[in-house]
C-alpha cells in the first residue's frame, strides 16, 4: 500500500517539476544568452564572460526610448481605464440578480482570438473615421485586459456587504461619502490589482498594438521590427529587461492579491 502512494507522489512531483521547467526554461535561457558579450547566440562559456555589454548598447538605440515611453503611456492609460471600468462593473455586479450572465458577458472577449479582435477593431475604427493613434491602441488594450482585470476586484466587492452601505446611510452618509468612506477603502486593493493587471497585459501585448498603432510604435512592435530586420544581440538584452520588469510587477500584484484575500477573510467573519 505504502509503495503505491510513494510512486504516485514521486510521479506527481516529477510532472510538476517538468511543467515548471517547461514554463521557465525558455525565458531563463533568454536571460542567460543576453549576458553573452559576443555576437553569437550562446550561453557564456566562462563565468568571467558574463557581461552587460548589450544592455549598455540599448542606451544608444535612437528609436528605443520613444518606444519605451509609448508603451509606458499606453500601459498607464490602459491601467487607468481598466481600473475605472472594473470598479464600475464590481458595483454593478453586487446589485444584479443574474450575476452569472453578467460575468459571462464580462469574460466573453477572452474567447475572441487576438488577431480577430485586433483586425475587427482596426476595421471598425476606419469605419467611424478614427485614425490610428496611441488612443486606439489604449482602447484595444482595455478591451483585451478588461475580462482578466475585472475578476480581481470581485473578491473585494463580495466582502462589501450591503449592510455596510445601509449603516453608513443611516448615520447620515450619501453618495460620495458612502463611496469614499465605505466602498473605496474596502475595495481599493482589488481596484489596484485590476490596474496592475491592465498595465502588465498592455505592456506585453503585440497584435492589437500592431494593428492599431499610429506613427509611434510600442515596445513590442519595436522588438518585432528588430527581429525581422536581423539586429544585434541587444534585442535579447531588451527582452531580458522586459522580462525582469514583468516578473517584478507580477510579484507585486500577487502580494497585493494575497493581502486582499487575507483582509477579506477576516472581514467576512464579522
Amino acid at each position, binding site marked *: 500500500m505504502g509503495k503505491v502512494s510513494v510512486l504516485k507522489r514521486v510521479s506527481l512531483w516529477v510532472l510538476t517539476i517538468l511543467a515548471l521547467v517547461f514554463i521557465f526554461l525558455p525565458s531563463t535561457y533568454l536571460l542567460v544568452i543576453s549576458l553573452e558579450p559576443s555576437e553569437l547566440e550562446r550561453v557564456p562559456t566562462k563565468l568571467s564572460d558574463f557581461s552587460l555589454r548589450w544592455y549598455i548598447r540599448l542606451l544608444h538605440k535612437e528609436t528605443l526610448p520613444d518606444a519605451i515611453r509609448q508603451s509606458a503611456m499606453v500601459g498607464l492609460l490602459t491601467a487607468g481605464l481598466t481600473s475605472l471600468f472594473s470598479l464600475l462593473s464590481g458595483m454593478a455586479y453586487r446589485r444584479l440578480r443574474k450575476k452569472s450572465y453578467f460575468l459571462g458577458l464580462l469574460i466573453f472577449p477572452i474567447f475572441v482570438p487576438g488577431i480577430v479582435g485586433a483586425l475587427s477593431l482596426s476595421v471598425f475604427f476606419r469605419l467611424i473615421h478614427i485614425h490610428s493613434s496611441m488612443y486606439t491602441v489604449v482602447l484595444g488594450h482595455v478591451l483585451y485586459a478588461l475580462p482578466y482585470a475585472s475578476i480581481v476586484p470581485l473578491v473585494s466587492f463580495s466582502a462589501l456587504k450591503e449592510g455596510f452601505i*445601509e449603516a453608513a*446611510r443611516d448615520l447620515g*452618509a450619501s453618495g460620495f461619502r458612502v463611496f469614499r468612506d465605505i466602498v473605496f477603502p474596502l475595495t481599493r486593493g482589488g481596484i489596484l490589482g485590476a490596474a496592475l493587471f491592465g498595465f502588465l497585459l498592455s505592456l506585453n501585448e503585440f497584435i492589437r498594438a500592431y494593428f492599431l498603432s499610429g506613427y509611434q510604435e510600442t515596445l513590442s512592435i519595436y522588438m518585432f521590427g528588430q527581429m525581422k530586420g536581423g539586429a544585434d544581440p541587444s534585442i535579447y538584452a531588451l527582452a531580458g529587461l522586459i522580462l525582469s520588469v514583468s516578473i517584478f510587477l507580477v510579484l507585486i500584484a500577487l502580494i497585493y492579491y494575497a493581502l486582499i484575500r487575507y483582509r477579506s477573510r477576516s472581514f467576512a467573519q*464579522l
Partner: protein
Amino acid sequence: MKNGVESRPQVDVYLKDLSKRFGDFMAVCDLTLEVQKGEFLTLLGPSGSGKTTTLRMIGGFETPTRGEVYIQGDLANDKPPNKRVTRTVFQDLALFPHMTVGENIEYGLSFQGVNKRERKTRALEALELVDLEGLHERKVATLSGGQKQRVALARALVTQPPILLLDEPLGALDEKLRERMQGELKNLHKKLRITFIAVTHNQEEALTMSDRIAIINRGMLEQVATPRELYENPKTEFVADFIGVANIISGKIIEDNAGVKKLLSNGQEFLIPSGERFNIGDPVILAVRPERIEIGDKAKKRRNCFSAEVQNTLYKGASVEYYVILGNDQEIRIRVESKSSSADELTGDRITIGWNEGDTVVLKRESE
C-alpha cells in the same frame, strides 16, 4: 390637514395604511400604528410576518407601496435614511470592518458638523454608556458578540437620535447574555427617555422590555397594547395563542334552556363570560390560560367544572404542568405552582378541573 394624528406632539411615529408589496407577495398590509414619544414599542410576530419590513420602512430602507410614514409629524415616505432623524441598530450589526471601534462610533457625528476633538469626547461618553470603556482604539474584528452589539448601540446613540430602531437586537446572543442585555436595554431606554422601536420574534423578550407590543401577523396588525393587556385580554385567536400559552377550545355559540349563551364544543358545553356579543351559531374559540385552571377540591367550586383524565405530569421546577383530556376529547394544559398542595404526580388519575368563565376570553374563530 394639520389636525391629523401625525401632528400630535406626543406621536413620534405614525404609520397610516402602510403597505409593502414584493412582486406578488404582500409583506405588509394596511398597517396603521401610532408610536408614542418616549415609549418602548416592540413589533412582535413570527418570521416572515412583515415586522422587519415595517421597521425598514420607518428607517427609510424600503419605500412603501401604499400608505404613509410620518416621523415627528412630517411625511417621510420619500426621505432617504440619511435625511431621517431615526437611527438603526441592524440585525447583523454592520460594524465597519476597516475602522476601529472609535471610528465606527464617531462616523455619524461627522455628518453633524462636530469637530474632531468633540467627536472623540462624545464617542468616549457613548462607550461609557454601554459599558465598554477603553475599547476606543480596538479593531472591530477582535470584539466578542456582546461587545459588537454594544458598539452598534453606541454608534447609533452617540448622534442623540429621538427615535432608535432596533432590528432583532438580541438575536445573535446566547441565552444568558440575551437575558442580561434585555435588562440593560430596558435601563438604557429609561435613562435616555427616547423612543425605542424594536422588532423581535421572541415574545418573552418583548414582554420583558416593552411598554407596548404590536403583534403583527402576515403583514397585518393583530393588536397593540401593554404586555399585560395582551396577555389577559387578547383580541384575536392569534394573539391569544402567540402570547404565552393558552388552551384553545373551538366550537360554536349555543343557547341553553335557560337562555344562557354557552360554547358548544364536541358535545361539551362551556360557560362563557357574560356580555360577550356573539350570536347563536357563531364559530368561536374559548381561550383559557393554564394557570387559571384549578384542580381537586378547589375546582369543584368553579362554574366550569369537569372530570378529566391526566395523561402527563411535567415537573418544570417552579411549576408543575398537567396534560389532561376531557370527556369530549378536548386536551387541556394546566399549570400549578410546585409549592401548592395539589402539585403531585397524577398521571393516569381521574381528577376534577375547573375555572370561572371570567378568567377566559371568547374570540372569533380564525383557524379551520
